C-alpha cells in the first residue's frame, strides 16, 4: 500500500493559520474542542487533490487560489437584494441565513419545529465526521454557527431556508452547520435555497446532518443558484431508522464550482430513500453530485435519478456509490444518471458504483449521455414549433424525469419554473 497522501503534493490553500485566527473560537468549550480536533485532521491533509479518488473529476485548484477570508455577519444585507428568480414559496415559513449566520429579524416564527443556535451535541459530527470527508473537515475546522432543527410532530408548514452569501471587499467564505432531527413518526418538508449577491466571490461550505427516527419522514429540496464566480461545497450525512422516509432533491443552476455530496446510511429495516437531482449548466460552471448510500440492514430501498443538461464550457459530474453490506438481504437499490449535451465544449463525467456483499438483492444502475435527438426536433418542427422552442421543450421534458419525482406538487411546480427560467434566460442570451 502507498502512503495515504504525499505531503509534498499538498495544494496551497487560503485556509491556514491566518484564516483560523479570523474565525474566533466559539464560547462553548466543547464546541471549541470539536473545532480543534477537526483542524488537527484538516491541516495535514488540506484540500483534496486529484489523486483523491473521490475528487478526480472535481479539481479545487482554482478555488485554492482565491484569497478567501472568513465572512462577516453582514447585518446590513437585505433579502430584497436577493436575485428575483428565488421564488417566493407561498405558505412557507422562512429561515434566513446571511453568510451562515441566522438573521432572526428576517426569519418567521416556526410552528411545531424547534429552532436553536445551540448545537445538538447528540448529532454534531456523528453523521458527517471530519475523518470521513475532507468537506466535513473543512467545515468543522472553521464552523461559524450551528443551527439545530428538531421536529417532533407533523410540521404543517414547509420551511424555506434561504442562505445568502455576501462578500465585502474581499472574497469571503463561511461554514455553517445544520443539524436536523426528526422524531419518531414526525415529518417535515424543507426547502433550501443557496444563493449569493453579486460582488466578490464567495465560498459556502455548509454541512448538514440529518437524523430520522423510526417512522420519521423528511422531504428536503435543495437549490443551488450561486453567483457565476462563486463556490459551493456542501456535504450532507443522513441516518435512516426503521421505516423512516427520506426524499431529497438537489438542483444545480449556477456557480463556478458546486459540489453537493450526500451520504446516507440505512440503519433500520424498512427505511426508504429517494434521492434525485437535476442540473442545467452553461458558462464555465462545474457541478458535482456525489452520493453514497450504505445499506447496512436488510429490507431497505433506495432510488436515485439524476439528470442534467450542459452547455458552453460547463462540466457535469455524477458519482454515485451504493454499498450493500453482507447482512443487508432484500435490498432494493437503484441509480440512474443521464446527461444531455446542448453544444460543443462541455464535459460529463460519471461514475455509478455498486459494491455488493449480499446475494438476495436487486441492484441496478444506468448511465447515458447524448445530445438532443434530431428526430424529436423534426417531429416538433413538422408541427410548426420553431427550433428554439422545440429545444426548450425537449430539455424541459428531459429534466422532468427528475423534477417529476418531487412528490410535493407546489414545490415540483416551483422547481420546474426555475428550470424554465434558466432556459428562457439562456435563449435570450442566445438571441442577443
Amino acid at each position, binding site marked *: 500500500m*502507498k502512503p495515504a497522501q504525499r505531503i509534498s503534493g499538498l495544494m496551497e490553500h487560503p485556509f491556514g493559520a491566518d484564516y483560523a485566527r479570523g474565525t474566533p473560537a466559539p464560547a462553548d468549550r466543547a464546541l471549541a474542542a470539536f473545532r480543534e480536533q477537526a483542524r488537527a485532521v484538516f491541516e495535514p491533509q488540506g484540500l483534496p487533490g486529484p489523486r483523491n479518488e473521490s475528487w478526480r473529476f472535481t479539481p479545487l485548484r482554482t478555488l485554492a487560489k482565491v484569497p478567501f477570508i472568513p465572512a462577516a455577519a453582514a447585518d446590513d444585507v437585505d433579502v430584497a437584494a436577493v436575485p428575483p428568480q428565488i421564488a417566493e414559496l407561498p405558505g412557507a415559513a422562512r429561515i434566513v441565513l446571511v453568510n451562515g449566520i441566522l438573521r432572526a429579524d428576517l426569519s418567521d416564527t416556526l410552528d411545531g419545529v424547534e429552532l436553536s443556535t445551540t448545537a445538538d451535541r447528540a448529532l454534531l459530527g456523528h453523521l458527517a465526521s471530519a475523518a470521513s470527508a475532507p468537506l466535513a473537515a473543512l467545515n468543522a475546522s472553521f464552523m461559524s454557527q450551528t443551527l439545530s432543527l428538531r421536529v417532533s410532530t407533523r410540521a404543517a408548514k414547509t420551511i424555506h431556508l434561504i442562505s445568502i452569501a455576501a462578500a465585502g471587499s474581499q472574497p469571503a467564505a463561511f461554514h455553517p452547520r445544520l443539524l436536523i432531527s426528526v422524531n419518531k413518526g414526525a415529518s417535515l418538508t424543507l426547502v433550501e435555497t443557496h444563493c449569493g449577491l453579486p460582488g466578490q466571490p464567495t465560498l459556502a461550505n455548509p454541512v448538514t446532518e440529518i437524523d430520522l427516527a423510526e417512522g420519521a419522514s423528511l422531504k428536503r429540496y435543495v437549490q443551488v443558484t450561486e453567483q457565476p464566480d462563486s463556490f459551493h461545497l456542501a456535504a450532507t450525512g443522513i441516518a435512516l431508522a426503521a421505516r423512516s422516509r427520506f426524499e431529497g432533491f438537489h438542483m444545480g443552476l449556477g456557480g463556478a464550482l458546486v459540489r453537493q455530496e450526500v451520504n446516507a446510511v440505512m440503519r433500520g429495516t424498512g427505511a426508504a430513500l429517494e434521492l434525485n437531482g437535476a442540473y442545467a449548466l452553461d458558462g464555465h460552471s462545474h457541478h458535482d453530485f456525489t452520493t453514497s448510500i450504505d445499506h447496512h440492514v436488510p429490507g431497505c430501498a433506495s432510488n436515485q435519478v439524476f439528470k442534467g443538461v450542459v452547455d458552453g464550457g460547463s462540466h457535469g459530474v455524477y458519482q454515485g456509490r451504493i454499498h450493500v453490506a453482507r447482512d443487508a438481504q432484500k435490498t432494493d437499490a437503484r441509480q440512474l444518471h443521464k446527461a444531455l*449535451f446542448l453544444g*460543443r465544449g462541455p464535459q460529463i463525467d*460519471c461514475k455509478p*458504483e*455498486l459494491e455488493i456483499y449480499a446475494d438476495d438483492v436487486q441492484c*441496478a444502475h*444506468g*448511465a447515458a449521455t447524448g445530445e438532443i435527438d434530431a428526430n424529436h426536433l423534426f417531429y416538433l418542427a413538422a408541427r410548426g414549433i420553431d427550433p428554439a422552442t422545440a429545444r426548450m421543450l425537449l430539455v424541459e421534458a428531459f429534466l422532468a424525469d427528475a423534477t417529476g419525482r418531487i412528490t410535493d406538487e407546489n414545490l415540483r411546480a416551483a422547481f420546474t419554473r426555475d428550470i424554465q427560467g434558466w432556459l428562457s434566460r439562456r435563449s435570450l442570451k442566445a438571441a442577443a
Partner: protein
Amino acid sequence: MAVTRETAATVKEIEQYKYGFVTDIESDKAPKGLSEDIIRFISAKKNEPDWMLEGRLKAYRHWLTQADEEPAWAKLHYPKIDYQDAYYYAAPKQAKLASLDEVDPKLLETYKKLGIPLLEQQMLAGVAVDAVFDSVSVATTYKKKLEEMGVIFMPISEAVHKHPELVKKYLGSVVPYTDNFFATLNAAVFTDGSFVYIPKGLRCPMELSTYFRINEKNTGQFERTLIIADEGSYVSYLEGCTAPQRDENQLHAAVVELVALDDAEIKYSTVQNWYPGDAQGKGGIYNFVTKRAACRGRNSKVMWTQVETGSAITWKYPSCILQGDNSTGEFYSVAITNNRQQADTGTKMIHLGRNTKSKIISKGISAGHADNTYRGLVRIGAKADNARNYTQCDSLLIGSTCGAHTVPYIETKNPTAHTEHEATTSKISEDQLFYCMQRGMTQEEAVSLIVNGFCKEVLQTLPMEFAVEAQKLVGISLEGSVG
C-alpha cells in the same frame, strides 16, 4: 467401510485442481531476485541485440523509481509481493528441436493432460500452436504453411532477430515501458511470448494459438505478445492457460499489444484457468496483465473475449484505443470467482476518432468467499464525433458470503457521442434451480446450466474450440459453490 474410504479418496481427488501436476524437467534458471545483472543474463540467454538490452535496462531503471507506485486502487487484497524472492528466468534445457519427436516426452505428456492438440490432434483441430513452456517456446507448428502465406508467427525472441524492423517499430508502441508498474516490470524482464504479423489483405486461415504454462517453481512469468494486423487483414488469436498446483503464490505480469491498421481486424480470445489457490485461499497465481489494442487505421476492429476462471488474483483490463475513424472495439468477458479468489477486471475504451464504436458485455459470477469487480472506463474525446458506446455489466451472486462490485467510469467531451451503461446484480433464483432439479438434474448441473445461460452472450463469441472448453470450465469452477 473400504468402499467408503475409496469413495472419500475419489472425492478428494476430484476436489483437487484438475490440472495440478508438476512436470519435472531440469531447468536452466537465473538466480533468484532482480537486478541489472539478471536482466543482462536474460538478454544474453536470448542472444539479444544491444537495442533490446538497452530497452530492458531503461525499463528496469524506471521501475526502480516506481517502487511505491504499485497499483493499490483495485479492490484486491494480497500480501505485499517480494520482487526479489522470485526467479525471473527459467528455460527447459533442451531447446532448438528439429521435430516434435525430439520434444521431451514428459512435456508432451503434460500437454496431453491439458488437451493441447499438438500431435495428430493438430490436423483435426486445425490449430497452429506456439506452445510456451515456462519461458521459452519449444515447439512451433504450422509455421511453414503460414510462412508461405507471409504470416509471421514465432516466439518474440526469434522475431527480434528475424524481423527487428517490425519489433523495433511496434514493441512498446501500444504499452510503453512507462505505462504502469507491472508493464514496466514486464518490459525489463520479459522472457518470451508470441509475435504475429499478418500481411496486407490476408485473412489468416487458421486460429493462432498459444498455451501458456507456468511450470517451474517460483518462476514469475513475464510474457510479451505483439500482434500486428496490416491493412485489410484478419486474424483470430487464442490464448489459454493452465498451471500446475503449488502452494507458493506466483506472479504473472504479461503484456499484450495489438495493432490494427486500416480495415484490419483482430479477434483475441483468452481462456484463463490458472491455479486459483485452494478453498482456504492458499496458493494460486497472481495475475497482473496489461492488454491493450490500438485501432490505428480507419475501419479497424479489435474484439477481446475473455473467460477468467482461474488465478487467486486477477488484475486485468484489456483495452482499445480507437484512433482510426470508424474503428470498433468490443469487449466480452466472463469472470468467475469461487472460494477466496479475487478478480478486478474490465476494460477501457478510449474513443479518439470519428464514428468510433465500442461495446462492452461483462458477466461477473461470484461464489464462495470471492470478490468480483468490474472496473471499466469509457472515454469520449472532444473530436470523437458520433462515437457510440454500449456497456452492460451483469453480476451473479451465488451464496451470501461473496461480493460483486461494479465501478464504471464514463467521461464524455463530445455532444454527438452516445454512451449507455447498464448494470444489474442478481442471484440464481430458487425457482430456476427447483425447475431444473425437478427434471432430474443434480444441483451442480443445474447451477452450471443456469450460469452458462447467464454467460451465453459472451461464450458465443469464442471460437468453437474454446467455447466447448469454456462451457465445461464454467461448470468446474463453480463446483461446490451451492448447498
